[in-house]
């Protein structure tokens, strides 16, 4: 684990202070600082790709810069930086009739929820902040913080659109947690572990050992998980909580400036978490697709990040090509399609595992 690794490193670097409590605190804080930097850079990257991919799908060229000065850089690469700066310099408005403490608490709660899920994401054999025995279960559990944050944001804004958005979002996330959980149960049955690293080490040995190619039920589970993950992160076609044609901006209607930026960043951080879990559980995590070839620690980071980013790209792709669902269709898909198929999948995999021995 990274914390132990940094602690050992500090102890060897300064042998006269070995075992100091300050080193332990440092070893705990450093990975967090690293992750924070990672999320920020990732946020800029993903916002840029969202702008560009959406433009290409709509047959536009997207943000472009024509030269030096305030022109958003070459190919518009500085556009997300400009967007971020704009958000942070905007006036921070708290509505007079809002419930002030809860209004302030909500964006932090959703960001903390997204941020502390990332510590369970493995980037390599040793490159993981916390390799917990209950890794995948922990990510599912922390995900429930987002529900409360969204309800609080919707309610404390004291605005009918915000309240509707919050309620819709909560109902949607709670419903889709079930098919997402059921399709991960199938993976846990195969690998017989909840630890992220053990799930990945089960998939060692190349492309055809990945869980998704393990038996005919796994692609179904992967599709169900991926669609449920879209719904849990409030992405189109499941963006009813913030559908701009009906609800202005849903639960973020009253938020502006830095607080809005926190919601925005959390949505993208949540996308990273669900994609990383999908990559870990179904696509071999940090394992190289060519067995032992290109499987060093640096390459493992590359594989993990490229698998995750591919799934994020698919999410962006779906967002700009598929229309939004209606509320009743949303609930129908979850309760009457995904959950029965998911339960059938569990039986199928159970029988498959017993027959295979």
């Amino acid at each position, binding site marked *: 684990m990274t914390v132990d690794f940094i602690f050992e490193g500090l102890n060897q670097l300064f042998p006269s202070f070995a075992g100091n409590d300050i080193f332990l605190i440092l070893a705990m804080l450093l990975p967090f600082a690293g992750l924070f930097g990672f999320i920020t850079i990732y946020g800029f990257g993903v916002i840029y790709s969202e702008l560009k991919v959406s433009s290409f799908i709509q047959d536009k060229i997207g943000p472009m810069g024509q030269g030096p000065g305030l022109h958003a850089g070459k190919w518009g690469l500085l556009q997300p930086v400009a967007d971020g700066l704009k958000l942070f310099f905007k006036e921070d408005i708290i509505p007079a009739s809002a*419930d002030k403490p*809860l209004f302030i608490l909500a964006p932090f709660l959703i960001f903390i929820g997204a941020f502390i899920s990332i510590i369970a994401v493995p980037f390599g054999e040793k490159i993981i902040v916390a390799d917990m025995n*209950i890794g995948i279960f*922990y990510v599912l559990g922390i995900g*429930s913080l987002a529900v*409360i944050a969204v*309800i609080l944001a919707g309610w404390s804004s004291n605005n009918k659109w915000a309240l509707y958005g919050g309620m819709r979002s909560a109902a949607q996330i*709670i419903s889709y947690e079930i098919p997402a959980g059921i399709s991960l149960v199938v993976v846990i049955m195969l690998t017989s572990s909840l630890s992220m690293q053990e799930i990945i080490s089960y998939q060692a040995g190349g492309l055809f050992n990945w869980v998704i190619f393990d038996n005919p039920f796994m692609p179904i589970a992967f599709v169900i998980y991926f669609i449920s993950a879209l719904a849990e992160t409030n992405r189109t076609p499941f963006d009813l909580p913030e559908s701009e044609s009906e609800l202005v901006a849903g639960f973020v209607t009253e938020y502006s400036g830095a607080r809005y930026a926190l919601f925005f960043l959390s949505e993208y951080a949540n996308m990273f978490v669900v994609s990383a879990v999908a990559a870990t559980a179904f696509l071999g995590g940090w394992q190289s697709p060519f067995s032992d070839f290109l499987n060093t620690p640096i390459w493992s980071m590359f594989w993990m990040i490229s698998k995750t980013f591919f799934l994020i790209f698919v999410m962006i792709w779906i967002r700009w090509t598929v229309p939004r669902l209606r509320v009743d269709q949303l609930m129908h898909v979850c309760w009457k399609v995904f959950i029965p198929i998911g339960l059938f999948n569990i039986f199928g995999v159970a029988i498959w595992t017993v027959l295979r021995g």
Partner: protein
Amino acid sequence: MTEVLFWFMALFTIASALMVVLNNQLLYSAIALLFTLFGIAGLYIYLWADFIAGVQLLVYIGGINVLIIFGIMLTNRIASVRLSQTNLQQGVGGVFAFWVFLLISLVISKTPWYQLPAVEPSGTVREVGTLLMTKYLLPFEAASILLLGALIGAAILSREAN
């Protein structure tokens, strides 16, 4: 270091539990309950019960606390009501609370508490699962049937009568 963290977590849990009781706005109490449950999940980790801590997060925060907050928000005008924290029966209540306090302290001092093993068990999930499927299979299935019954009952009750 771990002891400092433990005391911080215990204080955090107790302080937010006090806020649940002492706050005069229902919704704030519900939010304080969220932090209490979170603190308790942390205390479970100190008992090396990591699976129970995860269940605490998933069931109590993601399920029950959300349900409570939903209930408060959807109930008309309950969220803005200021609850009174005092009433006229302070004397009787005080005496009763004192005896309950005495009783609980007696129980705490008399109970032979389970001693935590010195070495951390390597993964509790497997043992919990094996026990649920062998030794405690009957209670486990009984609880499942009870929950299934509750689920079907709720579905029937919430349906419009025609």
